[in-house]
């Protein structure tokens, strides 16, 4: 059952086999898998539970409802990067674009060879990917509903002979309403809130929403429970308490909040690695003005990719479009000039790019401050590749027939000819010249075979606290290079199988008695 704040009338004390903190790509999958294997599961989710009836096709409303800090999460550094995160049942999957890609082989090879993760085999992971893809109806985006915006971009890329295609997505009968990032209003996108979480609930898991986990109880070096409070969604005040007694705790609060939770509670950090190695896949975007109507808000916002530059440069061009209210602030100028551009918004196309970053930031838990602080300063190589991304985007837009390109760079409001793209290549840009957004925090509780250099082992169990598992993108040892949700889910499925083995073995050893 999925319990909302209104369902809680007194303090809650509950026992279970597995307690999960977070209901995103990691938590939801592990909850469903373990519930299916017959274990009692409790999920604690800080956000509220929203359904398609709450998704009203108005982006800002959705941001206020389902985004952490109302969409105002950002990293500090050069430049300041906007980092939207979901705070709702389903986590960020409820508000992401639904892109489903497997780990690139070269990245997995790097993890195996340089981080001691040989057990993370391609073949084994492949089986988990297949299982997830089947459950989430993963298939390439239907060209009929990708929208003019994406087709125009692909046309440009095709003309240049670049490797391009339609992205694989977790959507069933998608009609291209264009609102993936604000909650799919027809339930086509198979985010966790419509797939794994309802299934976990059907299988007997209890999902407590508006419930903030504050502490993990540890006895004799083993995690034994979760302590927390329910939070009134209107006032933000803590009200009733929750105490979960359990055999296994899964921390799946994402790559920002999982390390923050550990740092704040001084847990699992003998290696000193918690909160370090933050990667975010920095993204830049460009707009392009055409003579004809584009209607960029129609169609699947992220449905086309260009991977021509991935192998050599770690750059993937992927669509990123939002309706006018959210997009308006990315366009240049102020006053009448800005209004003139916005009045032509129906003729403006948009596309983005994502860089597999080598920059390493950090997540900190500062004293006397109740939120994580993220520090992230783009290094020279990532700046160079972001600049190259803008060059490629502009080049493709002009080839597709754009009259003007808006590169979203400081002091370069627009490019009016392909010649200016050549000039842009030669400029020496700084981190602060870009408007950077990022959607994929990773790496802050990295996985590895050396307890002095990593936080969790290959089964996602922390080196320091037994029966405490971390299951989200924070365990990735490096940048993934592609959208991470599928790999989070694959690792969660693998971890669920491992935990099932541990719990079943304990049951056999103790004749089915509760080990705790």
């Amino acid at each position, binding site marked *: 059952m999925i319990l909302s704040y209104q369902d809680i009338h007194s303090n809650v004390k509950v026992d279970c086999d597995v307690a999960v903190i977070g209901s995103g790509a990691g938590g939801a999958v592990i909850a469903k898998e373990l519930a299916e294997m017959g274990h009692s599961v409790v999920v604690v989710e800080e956000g509220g539970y929203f359904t*398609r009836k709450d998704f009203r*096709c108005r982006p800002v409303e959705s941001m206020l409802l389902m985004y952490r800090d109302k969409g105002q999460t950002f990293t500090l550094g050069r430049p300041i990067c906007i980092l939207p995160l979901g705070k709702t049942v389903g986590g960020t999957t409820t508000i992401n674009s639904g892109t489903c890609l497997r780990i690139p082989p070269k990245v997995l090879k790097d993890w195996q060879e340089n981080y001691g993760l040989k057990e993370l085999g391609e073949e084994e992971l492949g089986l988990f990917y297949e299982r997830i893809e089947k459950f989430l109806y993963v298939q390439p985006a239907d060209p009929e509903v990708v929208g003019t915006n994406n087709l125009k971009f692909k046309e440009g890329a095709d003309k240049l002979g670049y490797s391009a295609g339609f992205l694989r997505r977790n959507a069933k009968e998608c009609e291209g309403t264009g609102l993936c990032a604000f909650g799919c209003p027809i339930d086509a996108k198979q985010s966790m809130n419509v797939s794994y979480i309802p299934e976990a609930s059907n299988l007997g898991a209890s999902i407590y929403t508006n419930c903030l986990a504050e502490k993990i109880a540890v006895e004799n070096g083993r995690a034994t429970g979760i302590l927390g409070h329910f939070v009134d969604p209107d006032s933000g005040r803590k009200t009733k308490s929750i105490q979960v007694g359990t055999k296994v705790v899964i921390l799946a609060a994402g790559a920002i909040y999982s390390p923050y939770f550990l740092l704040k509670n001084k847990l699992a950090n003998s290696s000193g690695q918690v909160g370090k190695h933050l990667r975010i896949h920095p993204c830049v975007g460009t707009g392009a003005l055409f003579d004809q109507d584009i209607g960029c808000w129609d169609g699947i916002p992220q449905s086309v990719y260009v991977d021509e530059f991935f192998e050599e440069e770690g750059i993937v061009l992927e669509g990123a479009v939002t309706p006018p209210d959210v997009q308006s602030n990315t366009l240049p100028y*102020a006053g009448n000039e800005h209004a003139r551009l916005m009045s032509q918004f129906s003729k403006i196309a948009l596309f983005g790019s994502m860089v597999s970053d080598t920059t390493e930031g950090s997540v900190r838990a500062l004293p006397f401050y109740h939120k994580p602080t993220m520090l992230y300063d783009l290094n020279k190589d990532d700046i160079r590749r972001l600049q190259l991304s803008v060059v490629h985007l502009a080049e493709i837009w002009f080839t597709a027939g754009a009259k003007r390109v808006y590169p979203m760079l400081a002091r370069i409001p627009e490019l009016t000819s392909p010649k200016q793209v050549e000039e842009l290549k030669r400029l020496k840009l700084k981190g602060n010249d870009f408007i950077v957004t990022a959607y994929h925090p990773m790496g802050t509780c990295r996985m590895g075979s050396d307890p002095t250099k990593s936080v969790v082992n290959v089964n996602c169990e922390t080196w320091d606290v037994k029966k405490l598992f971390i299951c989200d993108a924070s365990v990735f040892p490096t940048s993934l290079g592609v959208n991470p949700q599928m790999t989070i889910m694959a690792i969660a499925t693998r971890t669920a199988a491992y935990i099932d083995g541990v719990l079943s073995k304990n049951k056999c050893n103790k004749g089915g008695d509760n080990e705790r």
Partner: protein
Amino acid sequence: MESSERYKMLTRYEAEILKAAIPDVLGKDEGLPPVDADGIVRWIDTQYLAKSSFEFRTLYRFLILALQFFFPLFFGSEYKIFLSLSSEEKQRLFQKWSESKLYLLRNSFTLFRLVICFGYYGQDEVSKAIGYDAESKLAEASKRQVVRD
């Protein structure tokens, strides 16, 4: 908005500065509906700032006051408080603020404008004039629900 009206998060003075800034931040174009600065201030106050974090609210209020007292000094030709600038002077100030060489200043303009853009372009009437019809989309979407097998 009557001066006697109370605001939830902003002081009346801050609301007055914001109200004076909105038309020139957004600008005018015949393709767009007129700007209702009163309504946008009310929305920012009750719908956005009231739901935002304390830190964001404080920063935004600081920017409003900085706009009144400091930014005319940085970006104006002669010093006058913001409320006494003409529309042309305000537009020039915003243009210069948005193009500032100092990153934090430039970025603070983006933040200041962001909330105003949400308040204006988020209105159904405005987004419909651009071509994005939230009401129709919602009506269409409500007729359709994908069900898992």
